[in-house]
């Protein structure tokens, strides 16, 4: 039997980021997968120890440009925990606002790339078209399309005024009109189902054993979401995780597609209930001691740990990112699949190499 061994990545049109999967195929069947990572390693954790801790917000934001706000938020929260700072309620709500905005744009981006992965280019275009509206909201409220850069230790940097809230509500309504047909396509289209249904099965127990997080594990039937902890304002918004039981690529896709709606509702809820008051508290001294914080990124749970000794520089910052936890599931899902399913399955965990390798 003829075998084909070839590198899938680092530069590959299906993977926007450099990671290498050494695939061995027999005809069209993948028989062996060896991942090779490390192309994206920059040394951010070490870099964070060299910067004043307040500047690290900007560096942590750029661990990953897609979920950048949530990185910044998680960093700020872990520092605030270490320093014992109480963030004003308006800031907590605004953090949810931008975090959910990030989640929406990340999921839409992923849905588009996923559509491209199974060769439906016009659906990719539609997803990204809807995403532009989300980015407009982001730019309107934070000043930048993707790197919001609004989170600082002690609160947020920007506030929403009534005018902005009105515009945002209008845009969200537009978004709903645009996203409804897309959602239905993802849910019902037969060719999409034939490409995703039953592909990349991650059984419920295996998902737990491998420590998968985020939509990957929620697609395997676990209600596992760091937002259930109720950090920021999630505790006050009545958050319920989205769970699918299918354990396949379709289930993971539907988790994300439905989470877009969930985020949409959360944003509306935040806008309804936005409390008045300050948006940040002044922070003067330096972090001392250690703290740990979990937050939910679009790709899953991210864990921040920091240790300070009272100097402006942190002694240690450790980030455990969701894609790092999800990558091992690929080794379960890929062998035995067809070559044509490799993009679908690989993308179904939404790998973010920039996060993984920092």
């Amino acid at each position, binding site marked *: 039997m003829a075998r084909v061994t070839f590198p899938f990545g680092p530069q590959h049109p299906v993977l926007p*980021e450099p990671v290498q999967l050494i695939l061995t195929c027999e005809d069209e069947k993948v028989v062996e997968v060896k991942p090779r990572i490390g192309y994206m*390693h920059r040394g*951010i954790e070490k870099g964070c120890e060299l910067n004043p801790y307040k500047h690290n917000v900007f560096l942590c934001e750029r661990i990953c440009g*897609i979920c950048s706000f949530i990185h910044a938020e998680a960093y700020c929260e872990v520092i605030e925990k270490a320093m014992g700072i109480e963030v004003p309620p308006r800031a907590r709500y605004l953090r949810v606002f931008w975090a959910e905005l990030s989640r929406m744009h990340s999921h839409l*981006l992923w849905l588009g*790339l996923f559509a491209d992965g199974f060769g439906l280019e016009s659906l990719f*275009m539609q997803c990204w078209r809807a995403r532009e509206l989300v980015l407009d909201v982001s730019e309107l409220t934070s000043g930048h399309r993707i790197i919001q850069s609004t989170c600082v230790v002690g609160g947020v940097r920007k506030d929403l005024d009534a005018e902005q809230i009105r515009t945002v509500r209008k845009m969200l309504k537009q978004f709903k009109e645009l996203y409804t047909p897309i959602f239905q396509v993802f849910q019902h289209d037969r060719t999409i189902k034939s490409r995703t249904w039953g592909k990349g099965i991650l059984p419920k127990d295996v998902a737990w054993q491998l420590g998968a997080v985020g939509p990957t594990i929620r697609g395997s039937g676990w209600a596992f979401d760091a937002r259930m902890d109720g950090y920021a304002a999630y505790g006050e918004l009545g958050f319920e995780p989205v769970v699918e039981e299918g354990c396949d690529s379709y289930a993971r896709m539907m988790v994300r597609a439905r989470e877009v709606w969930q985020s949409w509702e959360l944003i509306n809820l935040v806008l309804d209930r936005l409390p008045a008051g300050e948006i940040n508290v002044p922070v003067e001294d330096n972090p001392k001691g250690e703290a740990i914080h979990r937050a939910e990124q679009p790709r899953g749970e991210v864990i921040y740990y920091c240790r300070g000794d009272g100097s402006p520089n942190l002694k240690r910052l450790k980030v455990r990112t969701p894609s790092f936890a999800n990558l091992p599931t690929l080794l379960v899902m890929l062998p035995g699949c067809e070559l044509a399913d490799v993009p679908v399955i690989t993308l179904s965990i939404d790998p973010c190499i920039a996060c993984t390798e920092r």
Partner: protein
Amino acid sequence: MGLLTKARVKSPWLLHFCSSSCNGCDIEILACLTPYYDVERFGILHMGNPKHADILLVTGPANRRNYKVLQNLYAQMPDPKVVVAVGTCACTGGVFHNCYNIMGGIDKVIPVDVYVPGCAARPEAIIDGVVLALKKLRGELEE
């Protein structure tokens, strides 16, 4: 402007390589292809393959691990070709300047024709950068 030069300027196919960026510029490059910005207006197609590409868009700084990949891709592109460094970190290393695995901007590794600042570079800036690159291409060809 000769017909061939015009054809070259009108039909730039691009290759995108994410060197070690944060993804911010990468998704903005992809956003350029989508309905709101639609760079196919200028004949730009996103090729996944260096052998078909005319413009290399690099995001992110060069790091010690994948600079070889970048050099390989550059070598595989047939002339005439231009390189656009997209985003602050591709130009100088930007916010990652003090991370230990970063070599700096990608001009440390391959010759760069156009630098696009921004973190992340906006689609408008990327389009401007590509247009500038095409100007350079045309200028080079007419010399």
